[in-house]
């Protein structure tokens, strides 16, 4: 079991590193999907099967598709990859990486200085989750609806493709 | 009630001027004049009525008292009360108010409504400062007088007005906030000692303060008053503010605003922190002397007339500081006299500077000279007030400076000796004024008219008052005497108990209360 966990964890980490270092957005996206899938595996190992499923269906399945959709829409391909290649130089990332390292060290220090607990009763299936979701957290669910409504209204408004007033002669036709 | 009336008259008059100013430019002048006169009459009548009382019952210090709850949650009340000292300064306030209105009669032609609004509100604020017996209320008025002053300098001042206005405002605000902190400190110490949280002056006077804390709190008060007075290293706002302000602004700054600093020291610093004040006496006196000498030296080198006069104020206020911290009756009375006479003499010089500027369109003394032959009346008056500012006997300032020096001499011979140098330096700069403006060769100005009737009226009043005060200052002295005696008494029976103060455990209370009431119903 432990072996499975460590392997999955390694896959997750490696694919995540790939995400932030790939030049081609589509490649990065695919690595992210891998990362998400392996994370789902870890959820599963932790006994959170429902979360693992949602991770795959919603995260990898829905949200990532949105990204793909935008990337395709904007036709970000080779050109972007070349650009990214130019931008992603050592001088750009060393500083931030050191900072991140420091932060990681601090995390490590703070997390490891608390007493570690082993998982003994890990299995929490969909049922308790669903129950608490619609009992205890009913208001939360309602609020999440409001959250999504805000997102929908907002995205609809902003995404609506009306054009920029570049110049009145160059005014593009309104699309939607 | 009369006290509320006074503030009310000024505020109401100011507002009326502002509103009526929308229709006509000259109505505000008359409104302001009427308001100032009304205020003056009110106070003057009150004074004459009370004068007998003051003389016959010197022990009853407080003449009239008015108290209403204001913010009772904090123990803040609208508490006005005056004694002889306040009364004198109130009379001065109203008196200078009238003059201020008169001397801006021709000078201010733009936005008269707003101008007189500001002017009268300054007067209201200053009156409030002299009357407030609640420390919060005091601070409130302390600030109220600043904003209109800021506008007065910032809108109607001369070229560099914005800079001067900022400087004035920021200096006074910064120091004022420190004072406010000290007030709060005092408030809580008192509250923790007695369980009664109040800003009432009379209650707070009884506060027992640990000596170290007392020193810090006193310094908080001191800084505000020192900046206002102004005391030597904090004086730099004053020349700028004075020289850029319109005439009435300079008049009120020099005549009233500076006085609030001295008043604050007499009213608050000493009675609230007698022990700390005594610790502070020597440094304060030294600063006073430094101010006397420094101000005088700087005054000597100025070429801008108003700046020069401003520096003389620094010098004169050095006397005030020295007098206050000499802690004896002679010096205190000298300080009171200095407050009154400096207001008149310096005010007169500023008014004169304004008149000259109106005629020559400059404040640069290098461009003046020989004006005596053109304007003998102004020359005579100018000479008189230059003499007043150097402390010529027979004029009010002499009484003041002499009493201060006499009192200070008792406290410290050597400091007084150095301070006496101020007398020599003051001669140097005062005579320089006369020399540069009225004497010397006259250059070809165009036609310059001597005093107009209005100006004669203003100047005659000032002249008569300064001479009157020089020859018979007794009314002023008598009026201030009860308050001063009380102060002296207080210093003699100075209580230097050291109290223990415990820090309250308020935060735990909040948490407990919250947790008790919410843990799972």
């Amino acid at each position, binding site marked *: 079991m432990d072996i499975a966990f460590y392997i999955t964890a390694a896959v997750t980490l490696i694919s995540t590193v790939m995400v932030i270092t790939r030049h081609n957005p589509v490649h990065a996206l695919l690595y992210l999907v891998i990362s998400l899938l392996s994370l789902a595996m870890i959820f599963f190992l932790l006994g959170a099967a429902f979360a693992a499923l949602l991770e795959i269906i919603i995260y990898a399945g829905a949200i990532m598709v*949105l990204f793909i959709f935008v990337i395709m829409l904007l036709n970000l391909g080779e050109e972007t990859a070349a650009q990214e290649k130019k931008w992603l130089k050592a001088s750009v990332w060393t500083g931030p990486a050191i900072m991140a390292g420091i932060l990681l060290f601090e995390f490590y220090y703070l997390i490891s200085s608390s007493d570690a607990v082993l998982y003994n009763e890990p299995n929490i299936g969909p049922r308790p989750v669903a129950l608490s979701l619609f009992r205890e957290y009913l208001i939360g669910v309602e609020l999440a609806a409001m959250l999504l409504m805000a997102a929908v209204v907002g995205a609809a408004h902003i995404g609506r493709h009306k054009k920029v007033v570049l110049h009145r002669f160059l005014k593009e036709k309104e699309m939607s | 009630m009369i006290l509320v009336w006074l503030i009310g008259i000024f505020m109401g008059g100011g507002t009326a001027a502002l509103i009526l100013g929308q229709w006509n430019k000259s109505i505000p002048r008359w409104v302001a004049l009427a308001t100032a006169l009304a205020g003056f009459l009110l106070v003057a009548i009150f004074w004459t009525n009370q004068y007998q009382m003051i003389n016959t019952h010197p022990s009853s210090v407080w003449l009239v008292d008015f108290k209403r709850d204001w913010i009772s949650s904090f123990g803040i009340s609208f508490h006005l009360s005056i004694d002889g000292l306040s009364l004198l300064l109130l009379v001065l306030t109203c008196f200078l108010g009238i003059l201020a209105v008169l001397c801006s009669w021709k000078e201010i032609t733009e936005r008269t409504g707003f101008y007189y609004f500001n002017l009268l509100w300054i007067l209201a604020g200053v009156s409030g400062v002299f009357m407030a017996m609640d420390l919060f209320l005091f601070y409130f008025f302390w600030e109220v007088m600043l904003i209109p002053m800021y506008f007065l300098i910032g809108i109607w001042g001369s070229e560099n007005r914005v800079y001067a206005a900022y400087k004035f405002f920021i200096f006074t605000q910064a120091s004022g906030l420190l004072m406010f902190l000290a007030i709060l400190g005092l408030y809580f110490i008192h509250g923790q000692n007695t369980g009664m949280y109040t800003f009432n002056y009379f209650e707070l006077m009884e506060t027992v303060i640990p000596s170290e804390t007392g020193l810090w709190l006193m310094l908080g008060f001191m800084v505000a008053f020192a900046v206002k007075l102004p005391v030597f290293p904090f004086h730099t706002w004053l020349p700028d503010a004075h020289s850029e302000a319109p005439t009435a602004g300079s008049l009120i700054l020099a005549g009233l605003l500076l006085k609030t600093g001295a008043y604050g020291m007499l009213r608050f610093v000493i009675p609230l922190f007698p022990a700390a004040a005594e610790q502070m006496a020597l440094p304060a006196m030294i600063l006073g002397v430094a101010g006397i000498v420094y101000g005088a030296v700087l005054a000597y080198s100025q070429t801008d007339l108003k700046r020069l006069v401003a520096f003389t104020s620094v010098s004169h206020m050095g006397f005030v500081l020295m007098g206050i911290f000499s802690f004896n009756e002679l010096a205190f009375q000298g300080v009171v006299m200095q407050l009154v006479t400096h207001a008149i003499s310096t005010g007169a010089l500023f008014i004169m500077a304004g008149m000259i500027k109106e005629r020559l369109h400059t404040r640069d003394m290098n461009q003046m000279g020989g004006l005596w032959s053109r304007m003998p009346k102004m020359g005579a008056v100018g000479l008189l007030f230059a003499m007043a500012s150097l402390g010529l006997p027979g004029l009010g300032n002499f009484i003041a400076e002499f009493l201060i020096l006499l009192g200070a001499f008792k406290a410290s011979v050597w400091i007084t000796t150095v301070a006496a140098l101020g007398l020599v330096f003051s001669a140097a700069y005062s005579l320089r004024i006369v020399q540069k403006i009225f004497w010397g060769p006259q250059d070809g100005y165009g036609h310059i008219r001597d005093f107009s009737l209005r100006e004669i009226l203003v100047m005659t009043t000032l002249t008569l008052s300064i001479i009157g005060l020089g020859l018979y200052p007794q009314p002023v002295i008598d009026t201030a005497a009860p308050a001063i005696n009380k102060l002296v008494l207080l210093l003699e029976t100075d209580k230097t108990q050291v109290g223990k103060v415990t820090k309250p455990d308020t935060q735990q209370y909040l948490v407990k209360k919250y947790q008790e009431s919410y843990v799972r119903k």
Partner: protein
Amino acid sequence: MSSSVSTEIVMLLAALLFVLGITGVIIRKNIIFMLLSVEIMLNASGLAFVAAGSRWGQPDGQVMFIFILAMAAAEVSIGLALILQIYHQHKSLDIDKLREMNG
């Protein structure tokens, strides 16, 4: 199922992912990559919640994860809408070009 993996290790994994996300946000100039990195961070937080939930044997961790999902979705939808607008206006997704406002 039982595991001998301690919370410490899982949290460490979450922290690693989180820090990788941060690194990504800082080093990338392309807004899409920044959004992706933010998703990594949110995901790491989700992992932390799920891990904490199973450490206490409570469903709350997973519930929180679901809310995080909802939020991520909302976030991404508006974010991508904005990206579309930016691309239309600037013909580029370089975040460093978006610095007209400063001082």
